[in-house]
């Protein structure tokens, strides 16, 4: 199905028979489904790592406003630079993703599901529509799903339109409601006041596929992977300077060095973990673990070879954030632009240490004062590159700047 063969390791999802997770879920009470997900210690695979069971419990307990329904939204707005695991999941494991949404709907009592697919993935639309049609015909969507009286649920696909910020769940909901993708204040959280003001669960593509696996094989099985605090396996999107870029599955808790060994980049100078909003880890940090207790990540790994100019990397990320900031709050709208100017100053070799300190102070302000995760995390790459590669970026000659 997937013409772009990106899978580099066998995936555990291959061993999950589609349909078994949903069948197991329908034999359980709603509380037991959530109990199973909570017992698995599954945490959100988009990067933030919120416990999925807790999220579902809150949504299950929330009251529906008159005349409405609860919603399950699959966040397929995979826009973080260096992330492409959801592309593989949606093309090759769409059934598991839709199954996870159906299980979530059963658990919280939702009747409508929405897959919010990023505009850049529009070419997947015919395939996904086909899978949904097949599931409707098989009785896995629609009224009285698989003979379960009163369990009605269907899924609609809605397209994004090229806005990174819509990966933030409240911005995504704004977009679904026909507004600019500007994040809302939280609280209230979407589990109480989400799409159309109704209780809404927003989960990442990989989280939902994992849910189908957990219901199929059990929470205890899931916990045999990973570490105590970071249960399960995780997909990693690996790109940049390595021999075998692609999608890998590893148990959480793998170290950066182990990962680099497997992907063919053992001599890397640095690795960007978590995409543009993540952190740049130099070689001295390759012993660190990819897990929620150490470096939490949505799975984006970008490898930099010894010859790479790290200031150029920082500039590329900052250009991205200047472009993608929604402009709603000042720390993010103005801060990213000022940081980019600072990077250009560094590029020209015209930045004093005092000014660099000012830029770092501004970064801290942005991290503290921005309204949503975009502005709170956009200075991360800049700060970590400045911290770890200061000798490389200060006092550059004009000839370096011109390159």
């Amino acid at each position, binding site marked *: 199905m997937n013409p772009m063969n*990106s899978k580099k390791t066998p995936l555990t999802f291959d061993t999950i028979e589609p349909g078994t997770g949903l069948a197991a879920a329908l034999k359980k009470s709603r509380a037991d489904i959530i109990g199973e997900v909570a017992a698995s210690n599954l945490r959100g695979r988009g990067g933030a790592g919120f416990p999925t069971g807790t999220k579902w419990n809150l949504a299950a307990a929330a009251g529906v406003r008159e005349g409405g329904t609860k919603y399950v939204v699959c966040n397929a707005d995979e826009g973080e*630079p*260096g992330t492409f695991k959801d592309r593989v999941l949606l093309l090759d494991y769409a059934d598991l993703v839709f199954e996870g949404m159906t299980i979530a709907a059963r658990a919280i009592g939702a009747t409508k599901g929405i897959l919010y697919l990023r505009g*850049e993935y529009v*070419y997947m639309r015919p395939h996904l529509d086909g899978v949904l049609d097949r599931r409707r015909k098989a009785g896995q969507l629609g009224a009285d799903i698989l003979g379960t009286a009163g369990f009605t649920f269907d899924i609609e696909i809605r397209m994004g*339109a*090229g806005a990174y910020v819509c990966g933030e769940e409240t911005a995504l909901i704004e977009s679904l409601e026909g507004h600019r993708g500007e994040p809302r204040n939280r609280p209230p959280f979407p589990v109480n006041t989400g799409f159309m003001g109704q209780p809404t669960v927003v989960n990442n593509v990989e989280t939902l596929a994992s849910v189908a696996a957990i219901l199929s094989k059990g929470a205890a099985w899931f916990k045999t992977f990973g570490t105590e605090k970071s249960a399960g396996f995780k997909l990693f999107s690996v*790109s940049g300077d390595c021999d075998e870029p692609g999608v890998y599955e590893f148990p959480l808790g793998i170290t950066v060095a182990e990962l680099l060994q497997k992907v063919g980049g053992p001599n890397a100078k640095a690795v960007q973990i978590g995409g543009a909003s993540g952190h740049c880890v130099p070689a001295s940090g390759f012993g660190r673990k990819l897990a929620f207790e150490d470096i939490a990540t949505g799975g984006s790994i970008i490898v*930099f070879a010894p010859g790479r100019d790290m200031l150029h990397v920082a500039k590329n990320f900052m250009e991205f954030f200047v472009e993608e900031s929604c402009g709603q709050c000042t720390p993010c709208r103005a801060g990213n632009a000022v940081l980019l100017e600072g990077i250009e100053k560094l590029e020209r070799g015209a930045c004093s240490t005092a000014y660099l300190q000012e830029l770092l102070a501004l970064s801290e302000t942005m991290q503290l004062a921005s309204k949503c995760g975009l502005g709170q995390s956009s200075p991360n790459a800049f700060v970590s590159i400045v911290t770890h590669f200061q000798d490389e970026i200060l006092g550059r000659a004009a000839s370096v700047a011109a390159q």
Partner: protein
Amino acid sequence: MLVSQQQKLQDEIHELVGRHGRSRAALMPVLQELQQTYSSVSDFAMQVVADEIGIHPAEVYGVVSFYAFLHHEPRGRFQVRLCQTISCDLAGKSRVARQLENELGITFGETTADGRFSLEWASCLGMCDQGPALLVNERVYTKVTPDQVHAVLDDCRKVFGAHAAQPVHA
């Protein structure tokens, strides 16, 4: 715009809004279909959409101007988007960019005089393991090299000529 064209567009938007639901939540799908058919959403179209849904046209403009894949100004029938984000950058997007400009005779952000092509930067296309990546309307090209650029554009040009009046979806 001719009155007959205006009437046709009005009818089309009326049908679109009817299909997607006469509510604010229908705004994005309606605008996306208009964008796909006409390569941009004109002032007139925004006014009609606003009237149909019952919101102020400024609200519609606010939405169109927010999203990178919705355009207010006329764009080419083929929107050529080159990924500018780090992995494609490391994989050599700059030379592909240069060759795209050479072949089309425009720079990024511009549209060719014949209205056939617009050239734009895109933020991460999700093809990071196979960069440089190029998105042309709904088709994605991976591992693009400068010498392939001409063939990619030539593929697009094939739909012009006899079928030039037809909207382009591919």
